[in-house]
């Protein structure tokens, strides 16, 4: 073995369970159920400036091919930052029913 040698990643040979995780959506479940208000995008007002996409803490504002945006309601927690950050009032927070 020389220094600069990479370690060999070898599978453990006994029952092995380690606190190892990998990135995946929903690590806290379907967080869309946390919402009390949901953001609704008015595509007519949306100019595609992407500020909502930039500010969204959850990565639940999705860029559309037409340059505008949509919301991933499965996980959106309804914080409302997208609505606050929109300079064109194109996002409205609507109470969940």
């Amino acid at each position, binding site marked *: *073995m*020389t*220094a*600069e*040698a*990479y*370690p*060999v*990643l*070898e*599978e*453990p*040979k*006994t*029952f*092995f*369970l*380690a*606190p*190892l*995780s*990998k*990135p995946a959506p929903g*690590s806290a479940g379907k967080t869309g159920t946390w919402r009390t208000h949901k953001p609704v995008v008015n595509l007519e007002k949306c100019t595609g400036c992407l500020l909502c996409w930039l500010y969204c803490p959850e990565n639940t504002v999705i860029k559309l091919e037409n340059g505008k945006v949509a919301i991933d309601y499965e996980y959106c927690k309804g914080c409302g930052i997208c609505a606050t950050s929109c300079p064109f009032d194109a996002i409205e927070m609507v109470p969940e029913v």
Partner: protein
Amino acid sequence: MVVKTLTGNYAVAYAVKLARVQVVSAYPITPQTTIVEKLSEMIEKGEMNARMIRVESEHSALAAVFGAASAGARAFTATASHGLLYMHEVVWWAAGARVPLVMAVVARAIGPPWNIHVDHQDIFDQRDSGWIIAFAQENQEVLDLTLQAFRISEDPRVYLPMMVGLEGFILSHTMAPVDIPDQELVDSWLPPRRQPYVISPDTMYSMGNIAPDEDHYMMRYSMAAAMEAAKQVIDEVDKEYGEVFGRSYGGLIECYKCDGAEYYVVITGSWAGDAKKAVDSLREKGVPVGLVRVRFIRPWPRERLLEALSGAKGVIVFDRAVSMGSVGPLFADVAQTLYPLGISMKGVIAGLTGVDVKPGVFEEAIAGFIKEAEEGPVFVPSEWLLPRKYRGKYPSIPREVIAR
């Protein structure tokens, strides 16, 4: 191969160099300091290709080598006493993460008052953490055990970090001739570092976020499984090491004059050397006594001990540490192991805080136990062997004698 006269600490440093460790980090503490001084020198002189991180504390030292090992480097640190206690939290973290890692622990008493002399309290304090924990008796064994530690820790059946214990000053600062094996031979014997995962952009693994309680339980269970498997690995590695380098030590335990023995001493660490002298002397007097030196306190060598002690009439255990309010930790494990044998047992607390225990003192204690046991079954969980100048001047702590 070259023979040099080395302190135990330098023996550690040479082994670390031979193992081609890539990242070293440590914080000075007596009596460990000369290990990292030597490693610094080797690295700065270009004799060893590694990075040295000169951290601001032991907590950081173990965290740094843990970080390095998680990223894929063979890594090493060393400490003692309060340094080890200060690391304690990271000790557990490293074991739970299942990252192979080696640390030398130069056993030293814990204050207050300040005391740099040897006892085993510091290393026994880490007993439950999930590290493989071993103790050497002599400087040569220190080097050999440190090399073996990388093999054991990085074995895919194990994947647990390992501590190599050596006694402060008794080994760390005492010179003795040590065979230093050739680099080529070590390279042929010690494979490239193996580990179960790395934290790196290549793998996208993360380590340590919250897990459900049931899964966390199973992670602990998996550590226990690895500890069980480690018993075989340790014996194998030591045997194989003997075939390649010409020295082996018995693996988990060393039996000394066990043939024909009826009574046994159980002990760990370098003071076993003095206890062996007492055994020699008693043997000369015709007393059928042998000695088992526990080389690995974790994993606990239950099966090997039961096998070695199955014919014993009585066992006396010397602890250089104590669980305050209970018994010596070595005794506790010996007693739970030998419970099915129903034989006489005594635990002796001695040599704490650097108090020297001479062969004559061992002999007296061993002979006394044998005399008691010959009169009838005896079970004394902890008897404090007071330093000579205090002996007889203080009332003994009422000792629990359970006759069966």
